[in-house]
């Protein structure tokens, strides 16, 4: 994992709000959302469609900065409102791994190259990147499909490659937006367990947006978002 410091929380959001448009067309997608994630913890972010889950995730992922509030990662303030305090793309490259609903692999690269590219753009030598990419694909059970193009892989295999890519640079933060939507329940649970395993083994903070209530036991912390309001929940209080 990339070392910044050893803070109490790997992810901290302080009252982040996201407003789209202005005047009559103003829409508040997320209001005063605060969250703390300790290292090694896996967070489930639940909520109905359109509740603002993805807005929260893209804000924490430094893709879609909030209108106000602060985002602190590894104890370092990264965003103050929409004001970037570091180079966001560079920070994303080094500290954040993404997994999406769709596997989002680059079609002109093979499975192993999709993992390799994430490391090479982070300055890892091609040979070292290839070795680690092989290790990750083996770890995720798709090592035998390393040289296949994404179009030759099943949905589950593609998703595993995407997970391998997210893990490639030893990120301190892993963000997953409905990563099991395209998978059957068995595969879906496997992926969730994988996130938990990575979080526990590597000390990363993981936030997973999910609709799947069957795998909630995998998560350490539960949050629910409704109408842009984020609220911490327990298994008992979850709807």
């Amino acid at each position, binding site marked *: 994992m990339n070392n910044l410091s050893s803070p109490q929380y790997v992810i901290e959001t302080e009252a982040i709000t996201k407003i789209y448009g202005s005047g009559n067309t103003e829409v508040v997608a997320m209001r005063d959302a605060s969250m703390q994630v300790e290292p090694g913890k896996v967070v489930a972010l639940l909520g109905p469609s359109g509740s603002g889950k993805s807005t929260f995730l*893209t804000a924490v992922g430094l893709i879609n900065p909030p209108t106000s509030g602060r985002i602190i990662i590894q104890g370092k303030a990264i965003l103050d409102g929409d004001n970037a305090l570091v180079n966001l793309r560079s920070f994303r490259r080094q500290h954040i791994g993404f997994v999406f609903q769709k596997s989002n692999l680059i079609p002109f690269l093979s499975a192993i190259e999709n993992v390799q590219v994430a490391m090479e753009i982070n300055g890892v030598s091609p040979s070292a990147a290839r070795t680690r990419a092989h290790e990750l694909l083996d770890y995720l059970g798709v090592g035998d499909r390393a040289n296949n193009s994404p179009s030759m892989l099943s949905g589950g295999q593609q998703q595993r490659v995407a997970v391998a890519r997210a893990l490639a640079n030893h990120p301190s933060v892993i963000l997953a937006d409905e990563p099991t939507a395209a998978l059957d329940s068995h595969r879906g649970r496997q992926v969730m367990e994988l996130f938990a395993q990575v979080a526990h083994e590597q000390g990363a903070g993981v936030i997973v947006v999910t609709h799947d209530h069957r795998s909630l036991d995998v998560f350490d912390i539960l949050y629910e978002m409704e109408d842009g309001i984020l609220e911490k929940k327990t298994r008992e209080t979850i709807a």
Partner: protein
Amino acid sequence: MNLARKDIRYNFGRFTLATVGVGMLLMVVMGMGGIYRGIIEDATLLIDRVGADLWIVQRNTRGPFAEVSRVPTNLVHRALAVPGVNAAREFVYHTIQREQNGKALRISVLGLSWPTDKGEWLPLSAGRPLAQNHYEMIADETLKLALGEKIKLGKEIYTVVGTTKNMISSSGDGIAFFTVADAQAIQFDTPGESTRLERAARYGRGERSDLGSNQPSLLENAEKSSAELPTLPLPQISAVMVTISPAADLDQVAKIISGWGDVSVYTSDGQRELLLKGTVEKVRRQIGLFRMLLTIIAAIIMGLILYTMTLDKIHSIALLKLIGAPNYVILGLIMQQALILGALGLIVAYSVGSKVFPMFPRRVILAQSDLIQLALIVLGISVAASFLGIWKALKVSPNEALS
């Protein structure tokens, strides 16, 4: 990892088609340059090959190539009398068009000053120089006259005794070399009826004058051949070519001859200048402008191809941005593809052009300097063409990877 190469391999068929298209376009640009070079080469080839130091032409004309020039035959002897002149040759030059095997045959007729000039200086591809004063010719290969073939020009039949390669006039017609006498016979050939009418007219003019009544022998002479009449001048020639002695001063010799009131004198460089600034200038400018236009079109088409290629992978570019790829990675991806497209297009252009251009009716010369210049232009348009794609790629938000 070279992303540009990976993407090309993935979209190999489409990239190949785009390369061939760009290559064909560049071939036309290359061809225009080659045609221009061919016109210059053809226009000045004769002046360079014939080896004259000075050209004496009709006063105040830009002859014999840029315009018609007529000088008397005895100008050769006057030139020879100038100190420093080593040799002087007659030069006859005109263009004719005849039918040969049902097809139009345009010939630039050039007279060689027999016996001093038999055409030994010509680059013969087959046969020999002229060996007699009449009825022999050396033809350029572009005239498609075979060695030994006979062709009727005027009242005489001429045999092809030698062939040359790439001896073309500035108008693109193949040159045929005859003796001056034959070249003049071809130029001034008149039908028998015309000759008879001219003689009758001459006789009539004699009859109407007192001189004809007082001297009947004059009327008898009027009916004879023009060549037998001492008072009529011999057919004129186009110019006189002068070669000066090695020790002589060219400017001094030119100054003496230019002092004569009936002629103008040009150096070989002056003749080149007259041709290039005169007859070839408009063609040169036209081709130059057309070439420039084609280069701009090639740049626009390359730009559109690269823009479309960028649009096709915009999701992948957004994804690369999302996982933190620096701009130089994305810029490199598009720029490298632009350069590969340009370089391969250039190779296609040269490979196809080398096979196609020799089939053109006029020479297309691919000079090394022109190829280097085109390579630099292609480099420039490749870079320029990639800007549109780069602009689009840099503008795309990482959010688009999530949509």
